[in-house]
């Protein structure tokens, strides 16, 4: 049963530190999404890639967030420097194009706490 994996599952860090989250998409899926979930804002799309190229990162604060896909088996989301307001659960999803929109498969998430 193919799954999206994310590491780490939990991360506690101090304000100002760099945070890197990693995602391994399902083999054969050509689209990768990064989401952030908080109680206040719900699920927000940060960025997504197709065939490793960024398609849309308009949901991401550009001054501190960056997303890359160095190869087809790894996507990364980096925050530098981190701030307490970045505390959230970050989900990666990989998708295969359907007849319409994407059918997305979500990973278990990385719970980030910035103190």
């Amino acid at each position, binding site marked *: 049963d193919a799954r*999206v994996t994310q590491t780490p599952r939990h991360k506690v860090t101090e304000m100002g530190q760099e945070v890197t989250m990693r995602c391994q998409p399902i083999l054969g899926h050509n*689209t990768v*999404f990064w*989401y952030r979930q908080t109680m206040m804002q*719900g*699920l*927000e*799309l940060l960025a*997504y890639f*197709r065939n490793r190229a960024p*398609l*849309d990162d*308009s949901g991401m604060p550009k001054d501190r967030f960056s997303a890359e896909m160095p190869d087809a088996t790894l996507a990364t989301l980096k925050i530098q420097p981190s701030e307490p307001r970045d505390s959230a659960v970050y*989900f990666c*999803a990989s998708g295969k*194009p*359907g*007849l*319409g*929109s*994407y*059918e*997305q*498969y*979500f*990973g*278990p*998430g990385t719970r980030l706490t910035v103190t």
Partner: protein
Amino acid sequence: LAKTTQPISMDSYEGQEVNITCSHNNIATNDYITWYQQFPSQGPRFIIQGYKTKVTNEVASLFIPADRKSSTLSLPRVSLSDTAVYYCLVGGGPRTGGGNKLTFGTGTQLKVEL
């Protein structure tokens, strides 16, 4: 950018049919509607997707009226294990161009009791 709203919560009993509605007044021509289920401490899980009229799969049905400004997820004969948060997602796909934003609804907490 489609703004999507859902009821915050719904209660039901085992064996009943549950209908959850999502409002998306600003839906674009190329947008599709997708529903996801989320359990605590897990990522959302795909349920069903549609563009217009009615779509049915083995777990749910999706009803979309002609104006497409809303959609209804129908869960037949719910059980305790269907207690979860349900989200609608509005947005395009690879065949409709990369410019369509993907917007999740506010989520509906469904609680199923005996």
